[in-house]
């Protein structure tokens, strides 16, 4: 069974996000970027399926600017077998529908039985690509997986939902979007990082798949959250009570 894992390059989760001075978006110049943490979980799960003898090959795919190929190398260093890199150099962020369309073509080319991907990317929190891909392919989908079992031609997925856990089964081929609690991704060792440089990455463009990546949404403005006002340190409970009264809070 071949597994396809789409991965996205995003601003590192440790980094404080800065909005550009002109409000035209987030400042990404010279900022640390990483693989989307949800996608990292997806890669880990696919590699574990291969290590368990369930998957035969793990193919990772990414779409984005030239540097996004680094994200594929991260996945290859973890243990994925090969990569597909779709260069999208248009300078604006590609939207989930265009991504899903390209992924649908990749699925058609590669013929995986399972697509595992992060439930959302931490930069724009769209939570849409997996669902759109399932719709385009007409495949079953199981989202927000915190547990995944493959057996007898079906994926059994435990999902995190409001109020508890829900278990669903999807007949393969299927789309599974993953949550952070599914697994704890490994760190690549130095020898594996070096080996990953020699693993094959096919280079493509959206045009190769007949997809127009131009955005359909318009970003009106980007703003930072309002700055929190500085607090004051009070010496006693009485002072606190007095202060709360003074502010009209009690």
């Amino acid at each position, binding site marked *: 069974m071949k597994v396809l894992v789409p991965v996205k390059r995003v601003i*590192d989760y*440790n*980094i*404080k996000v*800065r909005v550009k*001075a002109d409000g035209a978006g987030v*400042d990404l*110049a*010279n*900022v*640390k*970027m*990483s693989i989307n943490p949800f996608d990292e979980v997806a890669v880990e799960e696919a590699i574990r399926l291969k290590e368990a003898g369930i998957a035969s090959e793990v193919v990772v795919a990414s779409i984005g600017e030239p*540097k996004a190929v*680094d994200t594929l190398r991260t996945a290859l260093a973890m243990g994925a077998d090969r990569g597909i890199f779709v260069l999208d150099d248009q300078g604006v962020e590609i939207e989930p529908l265009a991504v899903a369309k390209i992924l649908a073509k990749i699925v058609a080319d590669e013929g995986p039985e399972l697509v595992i991907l992060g439930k959302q990317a931490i930069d724009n929190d769209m939570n849409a690509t997996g669902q759109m891909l399932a719709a385009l392919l007409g495949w079953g989908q199981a989202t927000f997986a915190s547990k995944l079992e493959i057996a007898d031609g079906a994926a059994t997925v435990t999902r995190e939902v409001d109020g508890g856990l829900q278990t669903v089964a999807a007949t393969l081929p299927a789309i599974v979007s993953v949550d952070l609690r599914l697994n704890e991704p*490994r*760190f*690549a*060792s*130095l*020898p594996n*990082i*070096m080996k990953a*440089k020699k693993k094959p990455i096919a280079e493509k463009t959206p045009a190769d798949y007949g997809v127009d990546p131009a955005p359909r949404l318009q970003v009106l403005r980007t703003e930072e959250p309002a700055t929190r006002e*500085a607090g004051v340190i009070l010496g006693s409970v009485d002072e606190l009570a007095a202060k709360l009264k003074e502010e009209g809070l009690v």
Partner: protein
Amino acid sequence: MSFPTTARVVIIGGGIVGVSALYHLAKAGWADCVLLEKNELCAGSTWHAAGNCPNVAPNYGVMTMQRYSLALYRGLADEVDYPINYHVSGAIRLAHTQERMMEFEHMRSWGAGMGLKIDMCTPEELQAHFPFMEIHDLEGGLWDPLDGDIDPSQVTQALAAGARQHGGAIHRFTPATGVSRDAGEWIVHTEKGDIRCEFVVNAGGYYAGRIGEWFIPHGGRPVPMTVLSHQYFLTEAIPEIAAWTEEHGRKLPMIRDVDVSYYLRQDTHSLNLGPYERNCAAAWVEDDDPIPEDFSFQLFPDDLDRLEHYIMDAMERVPLLGTQGVARNINGPIPYAPDGLPLLGPMPGVPNAFEAHCFTFGIAQGGGAGKILAEWIIEGRTEWDMWSVDPRRYTDYTDKAYNRGKALETYGHEYAIHFPHHEWPAERNKKTSPNHDRLIADGAQMGAYNGWERANWFAKPGDDVSEAATETWRRDGPWAQRIREEAHAVRDGVGVIDMCGFTRYALAGPGAAGWLRGRIAGGLPRAGRMNLIYFSDVRGRVMTEMSCIRHGDDDFTLMTAAAAQWHDFEFLKAALPNDLALEDRTAEITPFMVSGPKSRDLLSGLTDADLSLGWLTHQNAKLAGVDVMLARVSFAGELGWEVHTPQADAQTVYAALRDAGATTFGMYALNALRIEKGYLGWKGDLSSDYSLLETGLDRFVKLDKEQDFPGKAAIQAEADAGVAKRLTTLIVDTGEYDAPYMSTVYAGDAQVGQVTSAAYGHRVDAAIALAMMDADAAAPGAEVEIEIFGARARAVVQPKGAVWDPKNLRLRA
């Protein structure tokens, strides 16, 4: 805490250096000081620093500073009651070559001179310190038991706690937005209001360049710095290391593989690898890539590819490194001055402003830097000579290309050996003599002196002039025979050297002579004559030396070393009365030194000057049809004149001197010649670590003159008590190597001195060293030993005065 409107000192920047400065100021009783931090403390480069804490440094001033920091940190947690993770794990440095072993021997020796116990190791001893290491290709190494690592944020917070305990104020999330000057005071502007203060400190880390721009309208210059990116990464926990630590109750020592260029350190139970790669990267240097308004707690993108060569090497050294995953890569901004040393001290051109930034080993140096900065502010001087980090060592030649090119060169060679005949090649020819092309055509091998290119030696066809040939500690090399020939030409005939960039000031105005007499330790020459003058501080220590040429009652030319250009100008300017004019004329005049017994014969054919005028006279004259000033003096110690020539005529005069038969000689020969005369080098022999009397400058001190001068009382007291140390000339029984700076002098097992400079004297045919010796070990004829790269060389103390022409008969001929 209400926001202050006044303070004595405002420090801009809350990294370890700014906080340490506040701590030291507050501890010294200057409680009315304020630190402004744009974000949270440590938000710049401090938070992502690796926290390595070495004692050893290849630079004396820096080593002094680091040694102080480490001693401070060992007691700081208890002093301020703020716990700090500080692991004194020790560290080993690895040597792959004999030349590196020699560098280590020298570091061990000067460490011993500072009271540090640092040991040489065999490869097997290195492996005993770090059992997981391959050693088959090593020559040996160096073990420093006091090396280690400290948590950068904790040590900064501990210093902040100490500063607050002593009354210092820290305002976080308070960006300074600019400075202005009013009635002789600074006003520092912030988003929360203005603070009026006496002193201001730029401790802005990688933002120091931006902050420095605020001072340009007040006389400042663009800060000579570049931001580079330094990466290190941490592995996951390694079970074998965890087990070793469990068994031994401590961490493994740090490894610095200096020939490959990386450090490797245990971090909890993982490893931390930090290379200094050749193909390093600068950030925020292009116009289309400006430094962001705020980069607090941010990092650059990972770029492990850049480190591949170093990673592969380190994995072969310590195979455990590759057994676990890479958990975290840190690629952060780090500010570099062109030479990679801090900019710490007075801000050039700006009153009551100081710089304290460009720390590339900021955690190890921060403690000492705070002490030094506090001394600059409170006392106006420092306990130790800190010229090697003084911001004034960089003058007006440091453009953007220089700053960047040199920073990249320095970073890529962070651990490289600095050999005595090696010149770093990046960003050269910033300032050249009008005769530059002719010098090159004559085979000149150039060196940079305050940005000016001067000939070090002149190669002949077939000489190996490669950079590789200079990578040796040996005195011998392609230059050796040429230096000897040049020195002998000066001894037997006549030589000429183009001393472009020799610093030159004009001082004039009513009362100039009286003012100078109140500043210098000795006397002034009469009009028409010249002599050396020395300046001391209140401790009687050597501040600087100048040649003083007196044209009229109150009209002087003062000359000093090329490197001293801004330092000495500011030193004079600081105390200068308003009605005196002091101007820097360095770029207007090229001085040629024409020296040798045949110099009178040679000059007589070229000039109408009166060449019978005695030693230490000067006169204006025509030479080769050009108006020049002739000064009868010779730093080479022979009959000779300096020919001070307007820049526009420098080619004409040089051509005339050469065509008349003067042999070219270079700075290496000049150094060999001057040491035979006991003439002193600026910031080698002449250091504020030593007093005028210790430096043997008694004849330039007039304690009976009527004027007071800085240090007069201290020098009087020292003269009464007798000096404890004395700069001494030694003839050294050394074959292949001259004693490097700060080599230790022994009498038996006792340390009795340190070498300040050394060279081979080709006129006396002997190796010479100048050393600051304990006075009671410096009796003429006394036999001592100098430790030169680990071997003891016999040395004999010479009588006071020069070993060549002690009665100055040749000078006066």
